[in-house]
Structures are given as structure tokens and as C-alpha cells.
């Protein structure tokens, strides 16, 4: 099964190698060595990270590297767009073979390192043998991809920017298969937070709603910024913008002059050839759009089976307390998340109990202070907020703030956990239906 879940990642790696080979067909052997060694190095490095540090730090490092690649893509995309639209816009710069070799090798090294590390993160925690198999598979697939690339139609060429966009999109696609490495969900969450904070600060500073110039219909437009989709759409914009900018840069690049050819048909034929070449160069960004779209899909619908038990109804005793035994039908110390439903006096609340890796029992609401109360599931050493897909490491469950589930005070006895029903109900009301939450469910 562990091998199966690596298939899309290894295919993405093949795509990266094939793209590099297409960009620099002259030095395939050098490229193959660079790619294979960097992939193996990335796999070894990723494994070292996972071994030395705990999981979260290792994942954070790999995720930060993937984020850095995305930022590089943004910079390159802006530069490419400026080059063709800025004053005295230029066509595609003529690159010499040495430049192609240098660019391809320079990109192969970080791409291979990151791809190897991403594959290891997807595989972890497994033994040494699968890691060895992964390294060998990566090296073999590098050779296969370079062989297969020869069958891709010769018309399909790519610029340096298009190569970068394809590589980064494939890396982001590969990382989207691992919850801890997914970049789109955190991106959309940051966008949502930024927009909300910005709007809040901006209008607060203007003493809105008492401002004279704002009419009622203006508020309706402002309301869109607080809608639940603002993070998603804003995230999509940032996610796809560099690819679109690079695509636009290729589309807008000036064609070589054909005015020196006197015969109309010959002139048009040459012009058509240039246009055809430019159109073929657009294939890479178009593929990148599809690949990034697949990464978004992975992020929105991760193929992870969350542990999400059905809430068990609890009984409140005469003194208003809830007693949940440590051992019984449910073992609170089994490391799993356990959900409960409290109903009292027409009010209800969901809460959950889990034991952290250091053995402490924690009780929290099945909701956080900022998201829609869609609850949490448990997956791969963390709980995940279903609404914003934020992963909360088990170590930090019970601490307030951010998207962490809201903690509830508890008394841990020898037999079980004692909770105050009214505290839970009140905290649920404050969290879920309180005045601080934006009506409509947005953050």
C-alpha cells in the first residue's frame, strides 16, 4: 500500500525529469545524473530530517522549501511579465546551449532534492527497506522519463519560465498528497485572515459604521469580503496567478520580424511558424494549470480517512457534572480522538477528549474560535479542522488560540474525567453563536 500511495508522486517526478530533458536535450546524460543523484539525496536528506527531528519540524522544513519554490515562481512570473509588457518590451531572449545546460542542471538539483524529500514525507513513518526501494525507483524512473521524453512531439518546446512553472506545479502537486505538506489550504486560510484583519482594521480606523459616506448598499459589497469563499477564491488567485502571468508573457512576447521577406506567402508562412512555436510554448503553462488544479483538488478533498467517531451522548448528574470513565466502552487513553454530545435544557454542545503524546488527557470543544463549527478529525499525528483544513499537532491540543480547538477545564481523577456541563454549554455558545462570530459562517 505504501508503494501505491507513492505512484502519483513518482509520476510527478517523471514529469519533472521529462520537462528538464525537453528543455535541454543536448546533455541528457549529465541531466540524468543530476536528477537521479539529487532525488536520491533528497530522499536521504528527508529521511535524516524525519529521524533527527520530530515529525512536525521535518515536515515544516520540507513545506517551507516548497513554499520558497512557489515564491521563486512568483518572482520569475512577475519578471517575465514585466519583460514583455514593460517599456520597450522584449521578445524571448536568445539563450545559448551553455545557458540551457546551466539552467536545467541548476533546476534539477533543488527539484530532485525536494521531490525526494516529499516522497519520503509521504512514505513516513516506514522502515529502511521502503526508503531504499524509493531511492532506486526514483533513479530508475529518471532514466525511464528521459527515454520517454524522446517520444514527445518535437514541436513542444519550452522557455526557462515555462520549465520552472511546470517543475514547481509538479512539486506542489506531489506535496498536496501529504496533509502536512499541503500548501493550498494554509494559503487560503492566510488570505482569509489577511482580508478579514485588513477590513476590520481599516473600517475600525474609519469609525465605520458611523461614517457618513457609506450607504447601506456599500455595506452589501463589503459583506462579500466576509463571505466564506473569500479565502478560497483569494487563495486560488494567488495559486494560479504566476502560471497565468507566465502564460500571458509567452502569449504577449514579440515575434521576430518578418518584414524583410518580400513575398507575401513566404512572409506569412514564416510568421505562422513563429506563431505555431509560440503556441507550442504555451502547452507547458496550460499543463501547469491542470496540475495546480489537481493539487487544489487534493487539498480540498484529501484522500485521508480521518478518525472521526460519532459523538456519544453524555449524562449530566444532579450536581451538573459529567463523569466520563477512563476505561470502559471507550478507552480515553488509547491515543484516539473521542467525541461527545451534551444536551441540556434545549441547549447542546459537542466536545472531544484525547490523550496527547505525553499522556495527558485534554478536553476541548469540537470547534475553534474562528472557524465554522464543522469539527475536527484525527489523522497522522494531528487533528484537522474540517473547515479550514488546518492541522493541529496533538502536542498543542488543549492550548487556546488560532484554529486550535477551544479548551475546556477538566478534573482528571483515578477513574475518569469530570467536567462541568454548564461551562461546556456556555463556552460552546460563546464560541459558536457568540457575537464575535461573523454571521454566515466565515472566519
Amino acid at each position: 500500500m505504501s508503494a501505491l500511495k507513492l505512484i502519483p508522486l513518482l509520476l510527478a517526478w517523471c514529469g519533472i525529469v521529462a520537462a528538464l530533458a525537453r528543455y535541454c536535450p543536448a546533455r541528457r546524460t549529465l541531466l540524468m545524473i543530476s536528477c537521479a543523484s539529487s532525488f536520491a539525496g533528497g530522499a536521504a536528506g528527508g529521511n535524516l530530517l524525519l529521524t533527527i527531528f520530530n515529525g512536525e519540524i521535518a515536515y515544516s522544513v520540507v513545506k517551507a522549501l516548497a513554499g520558497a519554490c512557489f515564491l521563486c515562481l512568483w518572482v520569475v512570473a512577475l519578471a517575465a511579465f514585466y519583460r514583455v509588457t514593460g517599456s520597450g518590451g522584449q521578445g524571448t531572449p536568445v539563450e545559448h546551449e551553455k545557458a540551457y545546460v546551466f539552467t536545467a542542471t541548476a533546476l534539477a538539483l533543488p527539484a530532485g532534492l525536494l521531490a525526494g524529500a516529499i516522497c519520503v514525507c509521504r512514505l513516513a513513518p516506514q522502515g529502511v527497506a521502503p526508503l531504499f526501494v524509493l531511492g532506486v525507483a526514483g533513479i530508475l524512473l529518471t532514466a525511464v522519463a528521459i527515454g520517454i521524453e524522446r517520444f514527445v512531439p518535437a514541436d513542444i518546446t519550452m522557455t526557462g519560465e515555462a520549465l520552472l512553472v511546470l517543475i514547481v506545479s509538479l512539486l506542489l502537486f506531489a506535496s498536496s498528497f501529504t496533509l502536512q505538506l499541503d500548501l493550498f489550504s494554509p494559503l487560503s486560510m492566510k488570505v482569509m485572515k489577511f482580508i478579514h484583519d485588513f477590513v476590520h482594521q481599516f473600517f475600525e480606523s474609519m469609525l465605520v459604521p458611523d461614517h457618513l459616506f457609506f450607504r447601506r448598499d456599500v455595506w452589501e459589497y463589503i459583506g462579500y469580503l466576509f463571505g466564506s469563499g473569500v479565502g478560497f477564491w483569494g487563495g486560488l488567485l494567488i495559486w494560479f496567478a504566476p502560471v497565468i502571468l507566465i502564460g500571458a508573457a509567452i502569449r504577449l512576447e514579440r515575434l521576430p520580424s518578418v518584414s524583410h521577406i518580400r513575398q507575401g506567402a513566404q512572409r506569412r508562412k514564416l510568421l505562422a511558424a513563429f506563431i505555431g512555436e509560440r503556441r507550442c510554448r504555451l502547452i507547458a503553462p496550460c499543463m501547469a494549470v491542470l496540475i495546480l488544479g489537481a493539487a487544489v483538488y487534493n487539498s480540498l478533498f484529501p484522500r485521508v480517512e480521518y478518525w472521526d467517531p460519532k459523538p456519544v451522548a453524555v449524562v449530566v448528574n444532579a450536581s451538573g457534572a459529567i463523569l466520563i470513565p477512563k476505561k470502559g466502552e471507550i478507552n480515553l487513553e488509547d491515543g484516539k480522538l473521542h467525541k461527545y454530545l451534551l444536551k441540556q435544557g434545549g441547549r447542546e454542545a459537542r466536545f472531544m477528549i484525547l490523550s496527547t503524546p505525553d499522556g495527558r488527557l485534554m478536553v476541548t470543544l469540537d470547534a475553534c474560535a474562528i472557524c465554522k463549527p464543522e469539527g475536527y478529525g484525527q489523522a497522522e499525528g494531528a487533528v484537522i479542522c474540517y473547515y479550514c483544513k488546518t492541522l493541529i499537532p496533538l502536542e498543542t491540543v488543549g492550548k487556546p488560540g488560532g484554529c486550535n480547538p477551544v479548551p475546556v477545564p477538566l478534573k482528571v481523577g483515578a477513574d475518569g474525567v469530570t467536567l462541568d456541563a454548564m461551562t461546556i454549554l456556555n463556552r460552546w455558545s460563546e464560541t459558536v453563536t457568540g457575537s464575535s462570530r461573523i454571521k454566515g459562517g466565515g472566519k
Partner: protein
Amino acid sequence: MVTDIIETRGLTRSYGEICALKPLDLLVPEGEWLSVMGHSGSGKSTLLNLLGGLDRPSGGSLQLGGEDLMTLSEDGLARFRREFVGIIFQQHHLVPYLTALENVMMAQYFHSVPDEAEACSVLERVGLGQRLKNRPGELSGGEQQRVCIARAIINSPKLLLGDEPTGNLDHQNTGMVMELLKELRSEQRFTIILVTHNREVAAWGDRIISLDDGVLVREERTCR
């Protein structure tokens, strides 16, 4: 030295049992105007279709401009037609809902990319500078045929084929079209092969060949 643009050896075309063109050896030098005469069913149009790459021979060899048409794939043949051949039909075959200019630009589009200025200049060259925006239905037969000529020459073909191009025209328009073809040939130096059953029209050529029942029966030089 003038080279042969067309060279056929034992060229045949059969449709089932019917042999429309019997083994034909033909050499056409570059820049020549060759008229092909014959009665209905003599194989004139069959020959023209073969020379234009519109049909494939049943046997023999066919070389046009140094390219062996027998070995070309469908795509190769289409590319050859686009770049090498211009065809003028008796029935014009203009797109009725496009203007004269658009009809010419459509040929440019299928060849490479449209260029409106160039299409305008070619239409002006054939005397239709004032009729650019008219649709075929708004043009006379002679004008339509001139649009057809503009469409045929816009991609600078090396070989211009005409299948009864004056068949639908009166005497005056026929003379006008033939005069235009003569001028264009001297300007652009393409080879013309023109199928007709009208001896007067055929006489505009440098050489006349006659077909009868798929066989080349007569060949003569004109005094032009």
C-alpha cells in the same frame, strides 16, 4: 535552363473497371501555360485532379516540383496543395456568406495566417478594389471568377490549375479573365494548366494537348 515542374510516367487512374486515364507520359516545363482539351469524359478533369493532389493515381509516377506525390501522406499532400497549387474552378466555389475579401483571406488562413492588406492588394490587382466587401451573390460571374483567381494566387503557388475557368462566362468576360491570367503569369512566373473544351480559350496557352478516352491523342504548340 528550364526545368520540368511536372513529370509523369505511365500515370493512370481507374475507378473500378473504368480506366479514366490511361498510361500518360507528360513533361511540363516551369512557367509554361499548358491547355488540356478534350470532350466530356476524356479524362481532362481526372488529370487535373491528379496534378493538383486532389486525387491519387492508380499507377505510374507523378513528380511535381521535384516532389513524388505517390509517396506523400494525406497530411503531406494537404501541405503540398496549400503551398504549391492554386486552383480555379468553373463553379467558383466561393463561400457565399463571406465577402470577396474574406474569401481570399480564408485561403491565407489555411495556408498560414491572414493578412488583410495583402488580400486587398491582390483583389485590387484583379480589378476588384471597389468590391472588397461584396459577397459572391452581389458579384457578376466574371467578378466572381476574378475573386477565384485572387484566391488561387494569394499564396504564390508554383502551379495554377484551371478547370474550365471560363465555362460560365460570356465572351467579353472570358477575354478579360484570360488577359488577367496572362498578366499574372508574366508577373509571378507560375505554371498554368488549364482544362477547357473551348479551342479559343486553349489557344491562350503555349502548348495544347488533347485527350480522348483517357489517352493523349494530340499535342501542338500555339503561335503565342
